[in-house]
């Protein structure tokens, strides 16, 4: 589903990734392990379009996406739940979830991309644009009415799905996001990501700053999301133990390079991983 090849990414003059390659098969959970500053978050930022790669290629469903912006990539069916959660902390829980579904609404609004008419001769193209502009108001209105109910249902069912995973969010839907506990905030971040109905979920350190018991609960839900909805997951995590528990496959990232790649069971047995990341 996701193929990253020879990805090089940099923050100004500082190169963070020196040619990272990895693959995420459809329906799987893939973990990227590594220490602080190894380039885990950078990898996700490059995949989701927040950071433009210097070179290398990123393919999502066979389509090159390394030249697309983050706004475009999310509507292809990929949600990035960033490091530190990045909630809209002054908005309510429900407003955060509504924003999670924004990419789907924007698409239905025709806020996406103008249809190319480059093959038309200039005069016809001008006429085409004038016609479009003159009638767009009427067409938009008709389409809005037609699609309103469908979008409403779509939104409601996505919301129900999120509330099924995280009942606490339904209880707190009117609360300001910044006043939630850390675990609830992480749940909201994941819920917000799910509102876009992604096929691929990029998760950055979901355990960050959480109590072990809360972390375990969240990881269980992540596994459920993968198992019951078939959402593919690329998970970045410092806590190797937890990550390898739910992942099918893992990569080890060290100072911007992949040093190990294997199935979770084999990585667990690997001496290097045990020494560096499992603390045994």
């Amino acid at each position, binding site marked *: 589903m996701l193929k990253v090849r020879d990805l090089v990414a940099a923050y100004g003059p500082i190169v963070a990734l020196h040619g990272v390659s990895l693959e995420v098969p459809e329906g799987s959970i893939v973990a990227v392990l590594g220490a602080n500053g190894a380039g885990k978050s950078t990898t996700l930022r490059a995949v989701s379009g927040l950071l433009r790669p210097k070179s290398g290629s990123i393919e999502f469903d066979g389509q090159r996406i390394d030249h697309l912006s983050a706004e475009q990539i999310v509507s292809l069916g990929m949600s990035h739940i*960033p490091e530190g959660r990045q909630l*809209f902390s002054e908005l309510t829980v429900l407003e955060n979830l509504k*924003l999670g579904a924004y990419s789907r609404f924007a698409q239905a609004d025709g806020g996406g991309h103008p249809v190319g008419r480059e093959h038309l001769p200039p005069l016809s193209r001008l006429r085409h644009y004038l016609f479009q502009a003159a009638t767009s108001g009427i067409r938009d209105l008709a389409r809005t009415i037609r699609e309103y109910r469908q979008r409403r249902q779509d939104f409601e069912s996505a919301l129900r799905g999120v509330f099924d995973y995280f009942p606490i969010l339904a209880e707190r839907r009117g609360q300001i996001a910044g006043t939630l506990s*850390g675990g609830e905030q992480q749940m909201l971040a994941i819920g917000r990501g799910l509102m876009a109905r992604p096929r691929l979920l990029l998760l950055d350190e979901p355990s960050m700053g959480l109590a072990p018991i809360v972390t375990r609960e969240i990881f269980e839900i992540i596994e459920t999301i993968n198992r019951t909805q078939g959402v593919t997951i690329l998970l970045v995590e410092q806590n190797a133990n937890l990550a390898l528990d739910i992942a099918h496959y893992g990569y080890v990232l060290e100072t911007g390079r992949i040093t190990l790649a294997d199935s979770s069971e084999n990585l667990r047995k690997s001496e290097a991983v045990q020494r560096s990341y499992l603390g045994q």
Partner: protein
Amino acid sequence: MNEFWQQVVTGLATGSVYGLLALAIVLIYRSTSVINFAQGEMAMFTTFVAWSVLQRGEYWVMFPLVLLMAAAFGAFIERVVIRPVEGAPVLNIIIVTLGMFAILNNVATWRWGGIPKGFPAPPEVHVMGIKFMGEGALDIGPTVVSYHDLTILAFAVGIMIALYVFFQYTPLGLAMRATAQNPIASRLMGIRVGRMLTVGWALSALVGAVAGLLIAPLILLQPPMMMGVLLYAFAAAVLGGLDSPVGAVVGGLIIGITENLVGTYTPKEWLGPDMKLTVTLMIIVVVLLIRPTGLFGRRTLRRV
């Protein structure tokens, strides 16, 4: 007592103009952390355009036309002048807005001349036999209010309600609030941040244009007309909290009323009308010493 109410009502009217301009400043500040020093001059410029349109047309034809032009003008400035310096240090952007201040002022003087012009108040409108707006004054018990003051109040209240509904209940409004808070997360939601900023500038220019059209009948139309108003508007925005639209409006009203009361009730030898600006600014300094975020500014609540 009648004199007192008279001053309060007049203060409310001018105060809501300050509030509107402060609102325009806050709309931009919230989403970009930029204080637009050219806000007043943009309003002055659109008012001059309105004057030119009025030479040929009716007031109520001109009004929506000028508001549309103001919004387009705001969007244009964001795209052409502000976008290229996006990401630059805030000081650079502020200097750009100061540059726009000077340019708009000079162009207006060059095009329309420096001699003050009269600008009409919105003309009379009759709805179901009741007179709205226009000349004259209305007797409301303890005091007499001019129709123009009532018009200003009505417009201010209308705009505030419209903006509230827009930001609170429409998807575009929600996306704009999200962009103001966290641009990176907004991009991950699929929101085009640049487009939201353009809309923000357009809205802000529109609100400022209304302020200009409403204040011009009271202070005569001339290139430096918005300087004093802008100063009060800044004061209002700071007093209310630079990130709070409600604060901007309340701040504007407080300053409008204070200005009038100080001008009327303090003895001439001590403070008097000449010192009303100073007194107003003193109040702000005191408020900021006690509450640096302003009356309605939020100290952000975050748990990490």
